[in-house]
């Protein structure tokens, strides 16, 4: 056979075409494909989540006090997704970043898996597992002994909040035991409640009718950075944006840094840090001078606007005289760094606007503002007459629930309760304040306290992390010989405890959720167990009842079988609604009329807080009773600390007692956290002045402490200001959380409000020195 080159070529052409169109190669490869894709049955080693019956369970999120309704998607008994509950009056289907990441609190790391007793030194991390019954009996034995020794009042409780059945149960425990020292962690709500008590005579929270307001003057409130009930405010903000397009709404944000709220506002007013009260009074000056205030309301329903004469015939200064004298736009401009024309223009806009609203509480509202500052900002609402009006402010009463039987106090309890509070709240020093956590460290570390604390119960709070001047707080708390933590997670405080009695997480338990801060209607939510407890934990309410029953002499005050029956009894007729809807809303609520709305002795709204006088605060200066700007004197001299440090509060970093789940940390920009370095924001001008470039490593020094940071240049920060993110720098929990950045509370100290005694430190003096 002879095959020439040409012949061969022809053969190839033909055969190639033939094979191309035959099914042979195709079929062979298909077989290999199928074999390889099902190799070992599954594609590589990745978990295959089991399927199962789908269940949706409704509950209320308690990761923040926002009170949002959630619906949890479950596959059999696994919770796989948290979503916002449709139709819930607070969030209607929306959910915040922390809530949606909530499963990490349940399934993630750092859960305390059962009762623990400290084995090594404090904070060493050595624990001994112990049974619930043994733990309860050991703790109650210890507490009984303290009680027997006549030191019942030296036992304190730090609680994250003071409203709701669980904090009240702790309070009851102390009352029956004989200690007045129930201390709740501070927030701007403390000042606001105090202000309302003085100006309107009511024990109530300020309700802001944000949904209906159309001109929002925010004095540094991080309206969309986590202030109030976050989702609710987001929704209000969206409504404003819709109205703003039509020219019907306007938001003005007064803040030294261009926060998200400032960026989304229609106008950003970059004010000198801490001078908000001066600006508010500057606005008041313009409004009063130009007679733009609501004459009907101010003349007929307010007290202390004009000068007044007391029973002894002494003439007292009214708001009008003080404001007109002390807060002319020139003066205010000098203080705040805002131009006179802008002050005048904004004041006029506010007074002219349909449904104006002034909002206060800096950032998320985790630090209280000064009492007089609150009064100054709140006075703007009064001047335009939006108290108890649509789109205005109102004193929001607590939802009424069935009262508990009275506490059966024995002699020891009575004696203990007669002792002054350790934190001096309600004593002569600070007669109007209920609780002063910030006083603890000063009194304890200097030994100036009326007595020494011998035991501490901590629930829903993480003071070792969240308190200003962290080091001083740690030193103070460490000196308490006996600490019991009820935390579900191994947080910084639990780390320093002697016993940990772990509670169920929010998805494993019942709890009532009181009206969140700032809401405009009274509401109560019900948090429900969505899944069975993952670990050997217990409902904190049951733990407290168990303690109450086993501490000598106080069992009579704890008659309930368990927390669930207590809650059911407390909610009374609302229980069925709570179970059905997940919340109970006071549908009939409407703010009181002006004529009957004020419970002050004068029956009017009081610009001049006579309540302070009655409480025993004596001053010859009438200004001490009026809304006023009194500069907060930050520690440290401007020579060594030329800059001002302010915190950056963001929704993406949970900075309270609930730590940031890794999902959130993942969303944080690399200009906030890079590897384990935290970035502080400075204006490029400031950076240039201190020889710092983008990303430069520097020491941030304040009178409270010093930390290593990196600098991020941001045009949105006022020159001369350094801004530090909060919510980082945990030393407890798991590897996903700890060691990332620094805790801003290490460098922010405390500043005491002269009247309330609350810590009102909105920042600190600071210096920033580059490290080469």
């Amino acid at each position, binding site marked *: *056979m002879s*095959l020439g080159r040409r012949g*061969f070529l022809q*053969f*190839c*052409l033909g*055969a*190639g*075409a*033939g*094979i*191309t169109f035959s099914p042979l*190669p*195709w079929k062979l490869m*298909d077989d290999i494909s199928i074999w390889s894709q099902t190799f070992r049955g599954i594609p590589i080693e990745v978990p295959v989540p089991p399927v199962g019956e789908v269940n949706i369970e409704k509950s209320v999120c308690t990761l923040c006090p926002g009170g949002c309704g959630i619906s949890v998607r479950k596959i059999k008994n696994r919770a796989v997704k948290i979503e916002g509950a449709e139709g819930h009056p607070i969030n209607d289907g929306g959910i915040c970043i922390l809530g949606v990441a909530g499963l990490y609190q349940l399934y993630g790391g750092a859960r305390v898996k059962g009762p623990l007793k400290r084995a090594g030194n404090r904070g060493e991390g050595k624990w001994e597992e112990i049974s619930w019954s043994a733990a309860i009996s050991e703790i109650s034995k210890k507490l009984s002994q303290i009680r027997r020794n006549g030191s019942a009042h030296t036992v304190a409780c730090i609680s994250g909040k003071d409203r709701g059945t669980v904090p009240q149960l702790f309070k009851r425990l102390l009352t029956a035991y004989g200690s007045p020292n129930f201390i709740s962690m501070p927030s701007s709500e403390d000042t606001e409640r105090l202000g309302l008590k003085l100006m309107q005579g009511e024990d109530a929270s300020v309700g802001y009718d944000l949904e209906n307001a159309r001109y929002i003057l925010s004095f540094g409130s991080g309206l969309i950075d986590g202030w109030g009930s976050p989702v609710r405010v987001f929704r209000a903000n969206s409504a404003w944006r819709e109205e703003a397009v039509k020219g019907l709404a306007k938001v003005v944000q007064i803040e030294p840094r261009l926060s998200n709220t400032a960026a989304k506002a229609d106008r950003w007013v970059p004010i000198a840090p801490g001078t908000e009260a001066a600006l508010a009074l500057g606005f008041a000056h313009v409004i009063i001078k130009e007679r733009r205030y609501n004459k009907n309301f101010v003349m007929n329903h307010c007290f202390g606007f004009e000068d007044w004469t007391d029973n002894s015939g002494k003439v007292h200064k009214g708001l009008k005289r003080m404001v007109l004298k002390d807060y002319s736009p020139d003066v205010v401009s000098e203080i705040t760094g805002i131009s006179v024309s802008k002050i005048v223009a904004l004041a006029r806009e506010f007074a002219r606007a349909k449904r104006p609203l002034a909002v206060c509480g800096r950032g998320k509202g985790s630090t209280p503002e000064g009492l007089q500052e609150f009064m100054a900002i709140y006075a703007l609402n009064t001047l335009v007459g939006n108290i108890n009006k649509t789109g205005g402010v109102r004193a929001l009463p607590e939802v009424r629930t069935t009262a508990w039987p009275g506490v059966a106090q024995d002699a020891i309890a009575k004696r203990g309760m007669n002792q002054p509070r350790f934190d001096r709240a309600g004593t002569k020093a600070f007669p109007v304040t209920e609780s002063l956590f910030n006083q603890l460290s000063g009194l304890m570390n200097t030994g100036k306290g009326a007595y020494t604390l011998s035991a501490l119960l901590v629930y829903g709070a993480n003071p070792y992390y969240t308190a200003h001047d962290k080091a001083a707080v740690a030193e103070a708390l460490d000196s308490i010989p006996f600490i019991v933590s009820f935390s579900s997670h191994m947080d910084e405080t639990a780390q320093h405890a002697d016993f940990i009695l772990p509670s169920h997480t929010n998805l494993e338990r019942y709890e009532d959720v009181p009206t969140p801060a700032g809401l405009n209607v009274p509401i109560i939510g019900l948090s429900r167990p969505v899944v069975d407890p993952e670990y050997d934990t217990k409902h904190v309410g049951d733990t407290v009842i168990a303690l109450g029953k086993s501490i000598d002499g106080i069992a009579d005050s704890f008659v309930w079988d368990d927390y669930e029956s207590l809650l059911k009894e407390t909610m009374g007729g609302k229980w069925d609604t709570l179970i059905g809807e997940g919340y109970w809303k006071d549908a009939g609520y409407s703010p009181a009329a002006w004529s009957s709305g004020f419970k002050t002795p004068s029956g009017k709204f009081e610009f001049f807080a006579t309540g302070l006088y009655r409480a025993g605060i004596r001053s010859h200066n009438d200004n001490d009773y009026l809304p006023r700007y009194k500069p907060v004197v930050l520690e440290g001299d401007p020579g060594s600390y030329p800059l001002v440090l302010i915190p950056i509060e963001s929704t993406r970093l949970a900075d309270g007692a609930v730590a940031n789940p890794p999902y959130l940390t993942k969303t944080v920009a690399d200009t906030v956290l890079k590897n384990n370095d935290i970035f502080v924001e400075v204006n490029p001008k400031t950076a240039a002045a201190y020889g710092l470039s983008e990303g430069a490593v520097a020491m941030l020094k304040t009178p409270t402490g010093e930390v290593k940071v990196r600098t991020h240049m941001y045009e949105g920060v006022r020159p001369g200001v350094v801004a530090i993110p909060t919510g980082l720098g945990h030393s407890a929990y798991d590897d996903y959380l700890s060691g990332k950045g620094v805790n801003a509370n290490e460098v922010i100290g405390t500043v005491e409000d002269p009247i309330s005694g609350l810590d009102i430190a909105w920042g600190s003096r600071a210096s920033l020195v580059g490290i080469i």
Partner: protein
Amino acid sequence: MFPFCFEWHWDLGHMVFHGALWYALSILGIGLTYAAIKSFIDLKKGGHH
């Protein structure tokens, strides 16, 4: 690549591409087979170049 894969949709591109591909592959295969067979035949014949 093939109609029995899911999300398949026919395209003129398939014809052109696969035509050219299998054409080239076939030529290579046939060429090699030819050279191999021919070598055996030559060996049988005892021819040595």
